[in-house]
């Protein structure tokens, strides 16, 4: 699980081009949207594509995304339980 979290942080930094942010800067329970990393709705779409492409998880219900994308912790937990690749 720890490895998955680190991998996820790295992918988010790369995909969302988070300049000046390192894996160490992102805490597992930091909110991804709003006050935490400050991601927005376009980033949410990027994360949905990332989940599908890298872990084989299709999110069809937008309401589902709200809880999954709360933090690295919630994302990693969901991916670990549902990944198909």
């Amino acid at each position: 699980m720890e490895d998955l979290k680190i991998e996820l942080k790295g992918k988010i930094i790369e995909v969302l081009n988070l300049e000046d942010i390192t894996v160490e800067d992102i805490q597992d329970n930091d909110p991804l949207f709003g006050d935490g990393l400050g991601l927005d709705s376009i980033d949410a779409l990027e994360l949905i594509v990332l989940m599908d492409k890298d872990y084989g998880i299709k999110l069809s219900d937008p309401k589902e995304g709200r809880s999954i994308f709360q933090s690295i912790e919630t994302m990693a937990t969901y991916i670990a339980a549902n990944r198909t690749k």
Partner: protein
Amino acid sequence: MKVYINGLGSVSCQEGTRNFKSSDLTRVSQGINQAQQPSYKELIPAGMLRRMAKGVKMGIYASHSALEEANIAVPDAVITGTGLGCLIDSEKFLSTMLENNESYLTPTSFIQSTHNTVGGQIALKLQCMGYNFTYVNQNTSFESALLDGLLQVQAGELNNALIGGVDEIGDITMRFLQLTKKINTVDEIFPKGVNYGEGATFIVLDNKQTTQSYAELVDTAICNRVESVEDFIQSFLSSQYIVPEQIDVLVLGSNQTANDGAFYAQAQAICSSSALETFKEFSGEYHTASAFGLLNACEMLKYQQLFSTGESKPIEYILVYNQFDGKDHSLTLLKKCGD
């Protein structure tokens, strides 16, 4: 109504882009020459910066400099020209389509890949709700924007306008152009190959002359193909009641390739008494490189000095002539501002 150029801004292959003497500038010597990137952090919030294409960043920086010089907070219009738009994101989006079999398409590169992104982002940043238009006309993209702004200010529809040309280097496209020998490589200089560059150049047109004014923009003309460069120039100048002997400096967009020679030789023959200046050895070739030439011409007029030598000289009129590969000819006539 007369139209003046009251502000200039640029990001180019040169480090202090606005250095005036060519001796201070670096000649582009490679096939592909990236623009020197200034620090954008002071100008653009980090949250926006991470998603911006290179062309957008260069455009925002250059437009900010031009507006600051012209002392204008929000222009009446933002008019841009670009040959290939935000090419890096276009390539990224298309590559992702191919790699992922048209699945997993992400929004950011698609949003950035449209040609009017630069003009749109500048207007958003300035909260400019006025006329906003982007011209994509290959090597006359900048002149198309310039002509639009000139006509609207002349007609009194605008008091001022921010006009710019932006193009960026995309690796995949450049590799294709090197394969077709249109761009030189590290190992080879092709007979028709050019040294490619990128950059953003913005100017502010205004209906009022100020102490900051660089030049009066008299006219600009575009012609996709010309039968005779001589006729094109003669007809353009005579429409302004000017004879070639009045042109003090002729600025040519020459790449000094096998394709260039005949066209620019004709221009030189007509304006045989004019001092000759070139600029693409400092900017590299790209679809809106002529804007960099116009910037040099503006500085020559303001400071009454030749670009290449720094020699002081009375300069009343400057003619900028550009073309590429025998197509997309453009002429821009500038005049010294009145006292």
